[in-house]
């Protein structure tokens, strides 16, 4: 790897540098990676799965895969975070598929009674609950794309790499997802307090 290339890696993907140090036995790198990556992985898994216990399992499993692949990691081929989000996305998809096998479809596709729950809660936590409830009504891929784009703040090309689809497909998924969310939540404006304080 040339000097320029190593400079790029340090700036573009500091996690890859930490992962290389981890593979060389650096315990401080293990700690930094854990602290950097765990909240992001857990946050994504929780928003996609909507279940803290399952999100916790997925987080631990995804990071376990990262630790195992560390000695063979090739710097420059993929960003660590992209690879990790991809593992998380696949683990979440597997769990959602299993869930669909156990739960009647109607219980998933129909949103919970958001009007009632939203009317009772006007605080930001309640709004986030409403967003989460609405997210869980989206199809798996739409939900993953919307969370990655609008909550994790990733760029479309990175989301395309994570979901293994084209950039145009990402744009389509996020647009449809946003339309569905706006429709679901738009009816709850008053209940969510948006007409009161304009926040």
């Amino acid at each position: 790897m040339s000097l320029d290339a190593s400079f790029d890696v340090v700036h573009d993907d500091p996690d890859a540098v930490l992962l290389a140090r981890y593979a060389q036995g650096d315990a401080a790198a293990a700690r930094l990676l854990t602290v950097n990556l765990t909240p992001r992985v857990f946050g994504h898994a929780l928003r996609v799965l909507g279940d803290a216990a399952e999100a916790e399992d997925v987080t631990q499993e995804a990071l376990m895969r990262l630790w195992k692949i560390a000695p063979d990691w090739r710097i420059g081929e993929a960003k660590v975070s992209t690879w990790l989000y991809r593992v998380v996305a696949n683990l979440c998809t597997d769990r959602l598929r299993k869930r669909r096998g156990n739960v009647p479809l109607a219980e998933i596709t129909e949103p919970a009674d958001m009007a009632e729950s939203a009317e009772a809660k006007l605080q930001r936590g309640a709004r986030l609950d409403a967003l989460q409830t609405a997210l869980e009504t989206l199809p798996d891929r739409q939900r993953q794309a919307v969370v990655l784009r609008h909550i994790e703040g990733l760029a479309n090309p990175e989301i395309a790499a994570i979901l293994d689809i084209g950039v145009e497909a990402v744009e389509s998924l996020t647009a449809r997802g946003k339309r569905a969310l706006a429709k679901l939540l738009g009816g709850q404006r008053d209940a969510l307090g948006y007409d009161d304080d304009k926040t």
Partner: protein
Amino acid sequence: MTKPDTEMLETLFQDARRTPPDLPEGLMDRIMADALAQQPAAGPRGWRAIWLAIGGAPAVGGLVTATAVGFWIGVAPPSNLPDIAAQIITGTTLATLDEGSAPELSAFGWDIEEG
């Protein structure tokens, strides 16, 4: 999708970005324990790193053998080699450079070429 709905959705996304979910208790510790359990051992440091860098026991064995052989040749050289050790110990020399026998050296050899 009306404009107010879009704006509300953007506000919700911003709130979600600003409010990462709390991690379950002990999750970070469990992941850290996994990381350390799976971590390859650190490479050797100090004298052990030098020992391995020069090739470990086989290389050091070769060095010791070469040193011993060299010492032995110095002490008891074969008949066709000069006994340098004896010369050093006894102070005798095989040949001396007679200062008078060597031509006088001068710079560039101009004096020889030009007569």
